[in-house]
């Protein structure tokens, strides 16, 4: 009975995806560590890091889907939360370097010595403690999302205007992080990391562990998002997306519903950023670039908005394509990405996952008709049949996708 309840609360499909992620979390590191180098089934070291990076992107896309697919907030600044989580992790990794930097200063990171700073700025205090850094990874993006959302949603800023100010937010953060006197390494950002929790960051074992943690974190985030969207609050979220003022007149406060989703989403994005930094070995202000946030929107749209697992698929596929393209035809990548986005918007408005759902429904209804014998002839029954297909189409797609039909981005 408890398993049944769990199944209802989390959604059957989502549990499958989470199980697959769990399997990946075990199998990829196991194959990398246990099989001898050169074995055909061994996942090479570079691949572990690459896949780990894709999974952090997938987590970011999942976070965006929670606010865009379910509450209709098209955030064009989600990369900011990712980058802030990344910086919090980066600061911890910088402090772990200790006196092994180029200047061998035990108290200050290299770039501060270079800038002739005498002491550690107050906002770096505590980042030598792992627990404090982990807390900040969640707290800083969460707090920014809370403050930003509090003002934006309470002033009833919606649609395009909201998208534009999220974009402005990440742009402003990028400009300020570029400044040397901000104390975050300026242009170069934070890099040259040595250890994480005392383990050498470049070691194969550490990398494999980081990969496993990333896959686990993605699975847990997916389950949390699924539980939220399947709760009554999730239904209110979709209601706010589709008819905001109606929800107000039955007594809900859309601004708080949005704020909740936005903060949860920002925290997930922050954790994704924190897992990204040790795997790629650097964080710099480029991560705040507006184009990055827009790319996240593209992954989400391609995978299938309002489905939770669609964006995961979208992020991995698009980034795999990016890795391949930028190696094979570097100058063509941006055209390919733009073309893909246009094609998906035109031909697959519900993304890959939505298209598969529709295709399955099509085949099912076809085989049902083939078995069913003579088709209805009278105009009346034809009309009934037509009505049924209309209903079937929407019922087919919606439950498959967690009962959330993507709406045009206002």
């Amino acid at each position, binding site marked *: 009975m408890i398993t049944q309840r769990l199944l209802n609360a989390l959604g059957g499909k989502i549990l499958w995806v989470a199980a697959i992620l769990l399997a990946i979390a075990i199998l990829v590191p196991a194959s990398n560590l246990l099989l001898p180098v050169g074995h055909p089934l061994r996942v090479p070291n570079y691949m572990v890091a690459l896949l780990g990076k894709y999974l952090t992107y997938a987590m970011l896309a999942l976070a965006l889907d929670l606010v865009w697919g379910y509450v209709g907030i098209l955030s064009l600044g989600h990369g900011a939360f990712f980058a802030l989580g990344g910086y919090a992790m980066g600061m911890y990794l910088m402090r772990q370097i200790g006196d092994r930097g180029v200047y061998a200063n035990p108290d200050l990171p290299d770039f501060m010595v270079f800038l002739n700073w005498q002491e550690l700025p107050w906002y770096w205090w505590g980042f030598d403690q792992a627990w404090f850094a982990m807390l900040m990874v969640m707290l800083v993006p969460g707090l920014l999302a809370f403050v930003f959302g509090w003002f934006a949603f309470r002033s009833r800023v919606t649609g395009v205007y909201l998208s534009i100010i999220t974009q402005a937010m990440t742009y402003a953060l990028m400009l300020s992080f570029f400044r040397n006197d901000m104390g975050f390494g300026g242009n170069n950002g934070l890099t040259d990391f040595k250890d994480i929790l005392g383990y050498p960051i470049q070691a194969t074992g550490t990398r494999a562990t980081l990969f496993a943690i990333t896959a686990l974190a993605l699975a847990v985030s997916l389950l949390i998002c699924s539980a939220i969207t399947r709760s009554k609050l999730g*239904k209110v979220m979709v209601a706010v997306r589709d008819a905001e003022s109606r*929800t107000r*007149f039955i007594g809900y406060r859309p601004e*708080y519903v949005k704020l909740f989703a936005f903060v949860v989403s920002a925290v997930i994005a922050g954790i994704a950023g924190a897992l990204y930094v040790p795997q790629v070995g650097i964080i710099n202000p480029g991560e705040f670039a507006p184009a990055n946030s827009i790319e996240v929107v593209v992954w989400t749209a391609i995978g299938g908005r309002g489905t939770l697992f669609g964006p995961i698929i979208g992020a991995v596929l698009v980034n795999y394509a990016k890795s391949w393209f930028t190696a094979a035809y570097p100058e063509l990548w941006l055209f390919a990405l733009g073309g893909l986005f246009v094609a998906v918007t035109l031909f697959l408005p519900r993304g890959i996952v939505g298209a598969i759902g529709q295709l399955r429904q099509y085949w099912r209804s076809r085989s049902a008709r083939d078995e069913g014998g003579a088709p209805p002839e009278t105009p009346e029954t034809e009309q009934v049949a037509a009505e049924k297909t209309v*209903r079937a189409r929407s*019922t087919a797609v919606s439950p498959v996708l967690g009962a959330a*039909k993507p709406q045009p981005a206002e």
Partner: protein
Amino acid sequence: MPRTDTILYLDGVSVAFDGFKAINNLSLVLDKGEMRAIIGPNGAGKTTMMDIITGKTKPDTGEVFFNGSIDLTQHDEADIATMGIGRKFQKPTVFESHTVEDNLLLALKGQRGIFPTLFHRKSSEEKARIGEILATIRLEDRRQDFAENLSHGQKQWLEIGMLLAQDPKLLLVDEPVAGMTDAETAETARLLREIARTHSVVVVEHDMHFVRELDVKVTCLHEGSVLSEGSLDFVSSDERVVEVYLGR
């Protein structure tokens, strides 16, 4: 009349948009348990009046009291909704990508905070109440269907059902039979009369047949204030009403 016995009390209410007086010194009193029909030509201020009562628009001057003592100008939409004023819009607005049942579940009276809603579990009382409402609005066999697939009339009923689920003290119903067939209109009149037995109701409507079927006191608005008030026969024989509204 003492204010304490009223469910809705508007006195000297005015509101202007860019200099245009949408509501001009409007006074309207509704007794507890009363059903009132409001008629008036386009632009008479009917919808603006509803906006003021539900907190969407703040009046420039005047008093708006609910249940005798609650000053509605001091509260916002969500507050007013939870205090017991339900509103049905002119254009049927239901949650299209939710099932009929979920539409009612969301409207059902209960806690509206974020965390109570997040951890909400549907109780058996709630299920029973949803069943009752579905029977009242005659949508029992559409329970699991998506609201977007309902007909126009059925959406109107679903919205009335959502009002019932809120269990408000006062229902504001804006043009409930617009675009309905005659049979659907008669059915809606029956539904509203049934609701009026236990609730106070304000109905805004253009359809005179429908207003006649409701058989209640009528208020005619014109240019933002009350032009005439009384039985439908009295109002429709009032020369000024004939001139502005019925005058053909």
